[in-house]
C-alpha cells in the first residue's frame, strides 16, 4: 500500500520535493492534503472504536435488557407474564404518586423532587410489572383515587427501538431536521471552495459565513436536545431509572452520548477552524484562485464530520 501511494506521488525517479506537481487529470497532491487524508484515516479508526463498540454491544445485548415496565438492565424483566398499569388520567396526582413511589423504588426506579408527579401528570407513568393478581389489586386502588388506568403487559427488547416512547427518548423528527441542516452546511462549504476556485473571494466569504451559521444552528439544536434529555423531560422508568436520560442511565444512553458527543465536539472544532478561516479571509488577497489550500483542507474535515453524522443518524436514531 505504501508503495502504491508513493509511486502515485512521485511518478519519476527524482521525487520532486515540495513542488506540488499536478498529475495528469487529477487534483494536485500537496503535503497538506496527504496529511489531512491521513488525519481523516485516524479519525475513521477513532470513530470505529466508538461506533464499533456500539454495534457489538448492541448486538450482544441480552433480549431482556430493556422493557416497558422496568428500568434498563433490570433482572426483573427476565420474568415473563408480568403486567403493569399505564396511568392515563391521574386523578389525585399527589395521592397516586404517594401510592406508586414505593413500588417504583422497590423496582429500582428512584424519581427525585417532583419528577414522579410530572410523569404522572403527563400521562407517561407506567407501574412496574407485577403478577396479574397483584396488578388488579393495584388497579382497584388507583381507580379509587380517581385515576384511569390501562393494563400493559411486559415487552422486552435487546435494545430500545426507534419511536418506542417507553424505552427510547430520542426525537427522530428533531434530528431529521438537524441532519438536513448539517447537509446544508456541507454544501455551503463546498460552494465556498468552488467560489475561490473561480477566484471569487467575496462569494467565498459569504459561503464561509453561511457554513459557520448553519453549523452553529446544528450544534445549537444538539445542545437543546441534550438539555431536554438530561434535565428538561421526565421519562418513564423503561428509559431511565431516575426519569432523566443521562450517560449513566443505560448502556444505550452511554453509547448515544459518547458517539453524538464526540461528533458534536468535532463540529465545534470545525466551527472554530471555519471562524479562523473567515476572519483571515477578511484580509483582501489572503486566499486567491491560486492559493486557497486551507479552505480546501478545512472543507475536507467539515465534509468528513458531515459524513460521520450521516452514519450516526442512521445507526443511532433510525435503527
Amino acid at each position, binding site marked *: 500500500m505504501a508503495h502504491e501511494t508513493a509511486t502515485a506521488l512521485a511518478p519519476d525517479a527524482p521525487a520532486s520535493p515540495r513542488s506540488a506537481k499536478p498529475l495528469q487529470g487529477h487534483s494536485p497532491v500537496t503535503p497538506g492534503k496527504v496529511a489531512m487524508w491521513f488525519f481523516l*484515516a485516524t479519525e475513521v479508526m477513532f470513530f470505529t472504536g466508538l461506533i464499533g463498540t456500539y454495534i457489538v454491544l448492541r448486538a450482544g445485548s441480552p433480549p431482556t435488557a430493556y422493557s416497558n415496565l422496568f428500568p434498563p438492565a433490570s433482572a426483573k424483566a427476565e420474568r415473563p407474564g408480568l403486567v403493569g398499569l399505564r396511568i392515563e388520567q391521574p386523578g389525585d396526582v399527589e395521592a397516586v404518586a404517594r401510592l406508586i413511589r*414505593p413500588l417504583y423504588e422497590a423496582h429500582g426506579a428512584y424519581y427525585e423532587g417532583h419528577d414522579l408527579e410530572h410523569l404522572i401528570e403527563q400521562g407517561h407513568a407506567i407501574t412496574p410489572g407485577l*403478577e396479574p393478581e397483584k396488578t388488579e389489586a393495584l388497579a382497584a386502588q388507583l381507580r379509587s383515587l380517581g385515576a384511569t388506568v390501562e393494563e400493559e403487559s411486559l415487552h422486552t427488547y435487546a435494545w430500545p427501538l426507534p419511536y418506542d416512547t417507553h424505552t427510547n427518548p430520542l426525537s427522530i423528527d428533531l434530528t431529521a431536521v438537524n441532519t438536513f441542516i448539517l447537509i446544508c452546511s456541507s454544501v455551503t462549504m463546498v460552494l465556498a471552495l468552488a467560489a475561490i476556485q473561480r477566484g471569487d473571494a467575496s462569494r467565498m466569504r459569504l459561503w464561509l459565513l453561511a457554513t459557520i451559521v448553519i453549523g452553529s444552528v446544528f450544534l445549537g439544536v444538539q445542545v437543546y436536545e441534550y438539555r431536554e434529555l438530561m434535565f428538561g423531560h421526565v421519562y418513564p422508568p423503561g428509559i431511565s431509572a431516575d426519569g432523566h436520560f443521562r450517560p449513566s442511565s443505560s448502556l444505550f444512553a452511554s453509547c448515544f452520548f459518547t458517539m453524538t458527543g464526540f461528533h458534536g465536539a468535532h463540529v465545534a472544532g470545525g466551527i472554530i477552524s471555519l471562524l479562523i478561516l473567515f476572519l483571515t479571509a477578511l484580509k483582501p488577497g489572503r486566499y486567491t484562485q491560486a492559493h486557497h489550500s486551507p479552505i480546501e483542507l478545512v472543507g*475536507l474535515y467539515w*465534509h468528513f464530520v458531515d*459524513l460521520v453524522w450521516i452514519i450516526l443518524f442512521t445507526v443511532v436514531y433510525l435503527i
Partner: protein
Amino acid sequence: MAVTYATHEEQEAAEAHAPYIKVWVVLLVLTVLEYFYAKLMAGNMTALVLGLLILAGIKAALVALYFMHVKFEGRWVYAIMVPAGILAAILVLALMPDIGTAPENPDVEETVWSAPNAPLGRDEPGVRV
C-alpha cells in the same frame, strides 16, 4: 475516475462547477426517504437495517465523491482510506464473537422462574402491594 483533464486549470474549473446543487438535492431527498422508510419499516429489523444502511451508504459515498472531491482525486486517497476501512471491519468482526453475540441463558427459565417465589434480582426487597 472516468474523466481526465488536460490541465490543472481545467481540473480546477471542473471542480468549481461540479454539480454540487444536484448532489445536495439528492442528499436531501435521500434523507427524507430514510425518514419515511424508517417509519414504515419500524418493527422489521432486517429490512430496516439493510435498507437504511444502503441509503446511508449512498449518502456517504456522495459526500465523499463530490464534496470531498474523491472523484477528482488520484487513487492515493483510496490507498489511505481502504486499509483504514479494512482494519475497521476486522476490528468490528473480531469483536462480534465475544461481545456481539447475545448471551443465551437457557438456565434462566428452569432454575429461576420455575420457582415462582425465587429472589428476582440484586436489589429485590420483595414485591409489596
